[in-house]
């Protein structure tokens, strides 16, 4: 009789162990985004946890934080700013490419050319811009003029980036 009571009480106790099992929260609590910023010849960031990334998308400047909605953004020639922790931020000027936010809090930025702002020479940019504007306004072929116009846009963006550092 007592054995039966023991079994029944044990059966009543069994479900309690299931309630104690904890649910796992994967990356929902993370406040950092996993960034990979890569060039064809160099990887600047490879799966690094950063707080915020500011990019110059073709549709406008945007800041990407943790758990951003998945999206694909074409980048203008412009500045990519990475905020790793606190108030320290690093800036690179990129020639253009794509920023992809993947599901699962992952951001990959693929660009063709990029360099830290201090690697640029304001003098060279000014001279290049003058040269490009001259060709763009000259009387070459349509292709050459368009090419010069594209380059002039890059140099103007560079000047803006270097000037307002």
């Amino acid at each position: 009789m007592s054995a039966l009571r023991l079994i029944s009480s044990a059966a009543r106790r069994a479900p309690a162990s299931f309630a104690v099992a904890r649910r796992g929260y994967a990356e929902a609590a993370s406040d950092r985004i996993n960034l990979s910023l890569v060039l064809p010849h160099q990887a600047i960031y490879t799966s690094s946890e950063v707080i915020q990334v500011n990019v110059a998308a073709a549709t406008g400047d945007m800041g990407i934080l943790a758990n951003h909605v998945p999206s694909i953004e074409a980048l203008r020639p412009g500045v990519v700013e990475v905020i790793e922790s606190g108030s320290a931020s690093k800036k690179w000027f990129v020639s253009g490419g794509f920023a992809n936010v993947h599901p699962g809090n992952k951001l990959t930025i693929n660009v063709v050319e990029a360099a830290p702002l201090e690697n640029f020479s304001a003098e060279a940019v000014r001279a290049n811009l003058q040269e490009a504007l001259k060709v763009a306004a000259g009387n070459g072929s349509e292709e050459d003029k368009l090419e010069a116009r594209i380059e002039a846009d890059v140099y103007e963006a560079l000047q803006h980036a270097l000037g307002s550092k």
Partner: protein
Amino acid sequence: MSATWRSVFTYNKYAQITARAVRNSLKETERVAAEKRGLTTVRYQHWENGVGGQQTVLNPELEKAPGKPAV
């Protein structure tokens, strides 16, 4: 901006043009190493019956700076 290039250039060519512009604006020390990245050479060879023919280099005179980007 200049979305008009889309009727003339492919995106690849556009990306090469902007990359070249960025490379040309670097400080002298970095620019020399970066310029090499802009060079592409193509060597092609016709194969027939398992035998390779003459290897020919496309655009052998690549010393002139800065050449037209590929594509």
